[in-house]
């Protein structure tokens, strides 16, 4: 029997993620790589790596959906779908009872209201970095820590210091001042996590929170933020094993559904040429 495969490419502001799944919705390959300024045009390299991992070639892939902030820069994609819809689908795969998904990424945070696996409403943070992963990336060096160390550090806190400012730049000034006052490091980190969590929770409350709540995105790897978020929302939150991949997984699964729907209706599947090459930008075209 010939197996068919579907790929999801999620180009976020910080990380690029690729998931390849088969028709049985089994993940056969997953790659997470830094997006970066130059990498944004090089989605093809991440895709090549994912194909190599699965022992496949691009011709084996029936459908590719690109999503995320850089979704327009994927020349081999058949379709672009927003990260909102893709995350909703990916999160549903992880937990069927999901009604609210919260994703905190490098550039923004969003809350998705989901019913039967379908996105029905959403809110997104706008330009302020305070409720995002960037907030932690900026503040970690000020505290002499790596981003990865923040979660565990905060779990050692005996109390959390109140961080009054929710602006990243002013937050940094506040942290410096707290350090000068001799506040314990772990209490400051716990305060920072609470600042992010309360900001994102108040955004999510606009959607009227119902369980189950799933937390995804790079910041979901931070156990301190996860704990603070659960407290702020007043309910248990569930985190997938790999919280970065829900968008790419959702994209791959939506690709499968697109193909299956077309086949059921006896319609041809509209596909691109699947050219595995670098993205060309408008300013480079003669």
């Amino acid at each position, binding site marked *: 029997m010939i197996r068919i495969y579907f790929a999801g490419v999620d180009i976020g502001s910080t990380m690029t993620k690729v998931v390849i799944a088969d028709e049985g919705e089994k993940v056969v390959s997953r790659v997470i790589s830094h997006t970066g300024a130059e990498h944004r045009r090089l989605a093809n390299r991440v895709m090549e790596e994912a194909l190599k991992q699965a022992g496949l070639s691009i011709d084996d892939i029936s459908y590719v959906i690109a999503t995320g902030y850089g979704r327009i820069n994927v020349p081999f994609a058949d379709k672009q779908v927003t990260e*909102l819809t893709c995350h909703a689908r990916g999160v549903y795969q992880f937990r069927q009872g999901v009604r609210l998904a919260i994703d905190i990424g490098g550039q923004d945070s969003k809350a998705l209201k989901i019913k039967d696996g379908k996105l029905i409403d959403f809110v997104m943070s706008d330009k302020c970095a305070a409720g995002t992963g960037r907030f932690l990336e900026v503040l970690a060096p000020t505290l002499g820590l790596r981003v990865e160390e923040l979660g565990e550090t905060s779990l050692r806190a005996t109390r959390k210091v109140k961080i009054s400012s929710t602006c990243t730049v002013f937050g940094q000034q506040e942290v410096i001042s707290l350090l000068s006052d001799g506040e314990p490091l772990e209490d400051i980190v716990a305060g920072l996590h609470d600042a992010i969590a309360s900001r994102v929770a108040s955004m999510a409350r606009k959607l009227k929170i119902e369980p189950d709540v799933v937390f995804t995105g790079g910041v979901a790897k931070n156990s301190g933020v996860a704990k603070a978020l659960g407290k702020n929302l007043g309910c248990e939150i569930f985190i997938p094993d790999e919280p970065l991949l829900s968008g790419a997984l959702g994209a791959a699964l939506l690709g499968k559904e697109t193909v299956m729907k077309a086949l059921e209706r006896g319609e041809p599947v509209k596909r691109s040429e699947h050219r595995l090459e670098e993205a060309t930008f408008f300013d480079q075209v003669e």
Partner: protein
Amino acid sequence: MVNAAGTGLIRVKEIYRNREQRVKELKAEGKTIIGYLCIYPVLEMLTALDLVPYRMFGDMDETITSADDYLPTMVCPFLRSVLDLGIKGKYDFLDGVVMAHICDVGARLSHIWDVAVKTPYSHFIDVPHTDRKISRERLKELLQDFQETLEIFTGKKLTPAGLKESIELHNRQRAMVRELYDLKKPDPPLISGTETLQVMIAINSIPVEEGNNLLKEVISEVKERGDDVPKKSARLLVWGPVIDDIALIEMIESLDATVVMDDTCVGSRNFFADVPLTDDPLDGLAYRYLEELKCPRTFRESNTDGVHRGYQADLEARFGYLGDYAKEWNVNGAILQVPRYCDSHGYEVPQLKDYFEQISLPNIYLEHDYSKAALAPLKTRVQGLTEIIG
């Protein structure tokens, strides 16, 4: 001779690109041009005295600098932009301005204008904020006061007959706008949201009689159209305050969506209610501007007898007309667009979202910075809405 049936929309685009050209020509011919903000200044009185009303807008492409000397940066960017343009001399051709108590910033702007810009004539109408009988009586008095200042400024007397004639002229324009909006009911609509906004901005930039002639041409031209507007999955209603540039609607319509209906103050809001012809024309004007204009700046209740009939009745009283629009224009999604810091519209958003949920209309809230450069990140939100609609 050029066939008139094919030139209406071309003329609309010309006016859109160079809004002030026509009033500047009229000024050179000796006409008096009166700028106004928002939809509460009673234009019927201006037209009746042969004054040319000119709606004042901001400029999304112009960075606000000079206005910061007078207004804090965390207030309505549209009104800041209008003041900024005024200080920079963009409105020097105006002989006067009329502003109203549309919102708190709008009210203060009227006074700041007199200090920072100065025009020979200026008037502020302190329109009440409730739709009770006592407010209507108060508005009538305020309109008498407005009339007196206009009479002093022009040296002319405003007669009831002249005012009635002007009301009829403006009502004619309203009827024609409604006729144009009817052409948005088919699927696909005969005229896009972007084109509709251009038409609306054009008629807000020229004398009412010229606007009526232009609308007549546009309507007959649009009626003859074939498949000029592409069919899209999402048929959207856009709600909110002023939209004075096509950039936002163009962005929406670059996706799988068409704006088939709006409740915005450059769009349908100012044209879906006529002024009733009453014995004393001021009665009809006070009634229309306070009761019939559905802007959040006026506090509306489901009752005026002190008896609370519950949240659902309140939502229906405040937003029921939007449910009617959704049905009549076959709308399947809504965008609540609000420039940042627009308090009067922002306050409505949670309840309006509840209302839309009640009538099962998918919707999103788009807060923007009144800047074209800042529109790009909003595209994902609009695309997300089109994906929800499917």
